[in-house]
């Protein structure tokens, strides 16, 4: 990688790490680890943001880096851990699709999203244009995670990592969104997690488990008729 400055290399490294982490999430079945991976993702994101901020000397990026640190590395994982402890959900059940199959699909997704990002990065003026494809891949991979998981908790983690992917995309494509939007997004994410907290307790006291197969009674097919 001659001719490429160190920070840029570091940035690309971060991107690669993000992708790796989302694959790890895809395969990880222990919820606690899942949350840790999420925190790690947040950390990588924080580093990347710092680098970009330092690179482009945009003050508001430091701010959003701080936001990332506070929210995605510290607060959210902490809340999630508390939830896990309070609700005693440690293991996810067997995912709907076995790991190897998932991995295979994951790889396809990565290919697809790189292809997808091609025209975008072709236009991008940012140094980090090549990372856009990775951001797309992270988003879609977390989507996949949400699809194959059975526990509400792990879906939430998937959801948050999707948020991370979007954030990274914003960083790498346009050095972040306007501040007001950033704040709004951050606020929404925070509120979402709080709401989720309330939710989990409600679900728990209703079904005393967070397994999603309790949440499959509202349906249209023949089973619905039998249910009534």
């Amino acid at each position, binding site marked *: 990688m001659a001719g490429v400055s160190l920070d840029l290399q570091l940035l690309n490294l971060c991107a690669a790490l993000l992708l790796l982490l989302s694959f790890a999430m895809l395969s990880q079945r222990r919820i606690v680890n899942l949350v840790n991976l999420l925190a790690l993702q947040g950390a990588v994101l924080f580093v990347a943001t710092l680098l970009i901020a330092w690179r482009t000397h945009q003050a508001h990026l430091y701010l959003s880096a701080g936001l990332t640190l506070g929210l995605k590395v510290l607060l959210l994982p902490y809340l999630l851990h508390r939830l896990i402890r309070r609700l005693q959900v440690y293991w996810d059940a067997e995912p*709907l699709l076995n790991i190897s199959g998932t991995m295979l699909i994951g790889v396809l997704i990565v290919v*697809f999203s790189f*292809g*997808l990002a091609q025209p975008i990065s072709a236009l991008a003026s940012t140094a980090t244009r090549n990372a856009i494809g990775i951001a797309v891949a992270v988003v*879609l991979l977390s*989507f*996949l995670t*949400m*699809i*194959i*998981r*059975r526990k509400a908790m792990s*879906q939430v983690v998937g959801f948050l990592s999707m948020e991370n992917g979007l954030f990274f995309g914003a960083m790498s494509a346009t050095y972040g969104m306007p501040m007001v939007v950033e704040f709004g997004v951050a606020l929404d994410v925070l509120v979402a997690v709080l709401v989720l907290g309330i939710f989990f307790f409600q679900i728990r006291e209703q079904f005393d488990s967070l397994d*999603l*197969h309790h*949440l*499959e*009674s*509202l*349906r*249209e*097919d*023949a*089973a*619905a008729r039998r249910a009534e």
Partner: protein
Amino acid sequence: MAPVPHSPLDACLVLLALWGLIGLAGLVRPRSLRYVGRTLFPLGALCGLALAAVAFSAIGTPTEHALLLVGLPDLPMHLRRDALASLFLGLLGAVSAGISVFAAGYFRRGQGTSAGLLCLQYHLFLASMGFVLLADDAYAFMVAWESMALASYFLVTTQHSLGEIRRAGFLYLLIAHVGALAILLAFGVMQGGSWQFTFDAMRAARLPPSWAAAAFLLALFGFGTKAGLAPLHVWLPEAHPAAPSPVSALMSGVMLKMAVYGMLRVSFDLLGTPQWWWGVSALAVGLFSALYGVVFAAAQTDMKRLLAWSSIENVGIIFTGVGLAIVFHGAGMPALAALALIALLYHALNHAFMKSLLFCSTGAVLHSTGERNLGRLGGLIHRMPWVAWLSLIGALSLAGLPPLNGFVSEWLLLQAFLFAHQVPHTFINMLLPLGAALVALAAALAAYVMVKFYGVIFLGQPREATLLHAHDANALERLGLLWLAAGCVALGLMPTQVVGTLRAVVRELAHVDLPDPTAPWWLLEPLPGRLASYSGLALLLAVAAVVLLTFLGVRLFYHRRVRRAAPWDCGFARLDARMQDTAEGFGQPIRHMFEPFFAMRRELPSPFDRAPRYHVAIADPLWLRLYQPLGSLVQRIADAFAVLQQGRIATYLLYSFVTLVVLLAVVL
């Protein structure tokens, strides 16, 4: 009071508005029968009379236009009164006058809907029909058209506590709505890219033949549903009997004619130059309905159902006329086209009167006996002479017998058929006489049906003891029946005048005309030089004269006395009322002959039964073969779709995911 209107159109509008007001007035004291029944309905009848007078007198006069400041922003409601509209307005007014008077005496306490609400729906029904006739843009037409359907739906479901009545209403509104959508699409075609939905724009639009054909077929479908053409008729035998009798009369007598009006308006006025093969399609449908309807009418055991089926037959005959007119028009035979148009308009008028008359009299019977099943009626001519003799007129005219009105229109139609052999298409030449044969067959069957209807209800011995307490119709009901019967007689006895009026309509509608009559006023000679003429009046006089002479002769020479005795029992021990033919019995030959038409279930008793029981149920094969499969098809599709949604959130996420990926792949 309304301001003095200075043009027929304004007068019509005022009268329609008055109908609306009368309806609203019904809500003031909805429970008071004296107020609603004895006051408002007669007022409505007066409006009807006035409307008839205004409209009929306006037939010759030039077309008028008007604008209402309601409707869509770029499309205020256009109104237009031309000869065709006037004719049907007159029909609406004249027939509804009779029915309203009858209804004034008809409605009793203790029906589902309160009298006042009924009054509102009834008069809104009338007014909306009036607006259908006056509308001159697609939006106004559709609004009036659907309001008509809606009002009649609420009238049909008056006694909504009964399950089958609800079912009938549902079926009716559903089919009406689908038909209305078809008409809507037809208008969508006809506006031809000029985003104006006024009829004038449609007249101006020159459509390519394929589009015009599409429009025509859509219209035929749409108006066919409302007219009850087979195979779109299934709602009719359900809905018409379900409604209170005056409403049945209004629906059969007047509302079906709205469909005829719409068909004429579209095919001759809006589409301009119809192509001959459209006519063939209409002809085929019409003939099929005519035969199908009358055959099923012969097999009915419920008197109102029987009348409903016979309505299908008559509508079939009318649409046969439409088809014939289009064929002639397309083949460039103006005189014959005019003849066919006049015949069908005449039949529309006739049917309006006679069918309303018969429905009203069934209403009277229903009230005094509480019985709709023909198998439990009989001998009512002794208990209710008024109803019996007046509905004899109706029955004879519906049977198409001279000198009454039913015969005249069928005569005209047959004349049209008969001279059709110069149509420049060989196979139509072959088919038209067969059409004539079918019409003749339908007419003869109609006579059969009417003998059954009349004989089983009014003649013979009462089949139930309760019938001995039957009472005749009250004064208002008699007046209504009398008015309608008078209409039948008048239409039968002065065809020349009626045809004269209709000529004006046809001239304006399709720019075709009959040659001017050379015959004297009392003689109907539609095509001079054809040497085909008819005079109901003279015929009646001749028959009456002979009857009188015979009677006098008998009186004069042989004055022997008459004694009463028990009927001869052919040596049977005792001869009781249950030995008469029931409705099933009387219809049996038809069932026997048209076996393939019916989906029949029979229970025959074995010779050794202690309590032998015979039961036969007739089902409409079109319902079984067409509509039930349709319903189950929808059910099956719905079940297939339902599998998509089986409650698992992962699946739903998968849908979003796949949608996203697919769309991305598309744009890439």
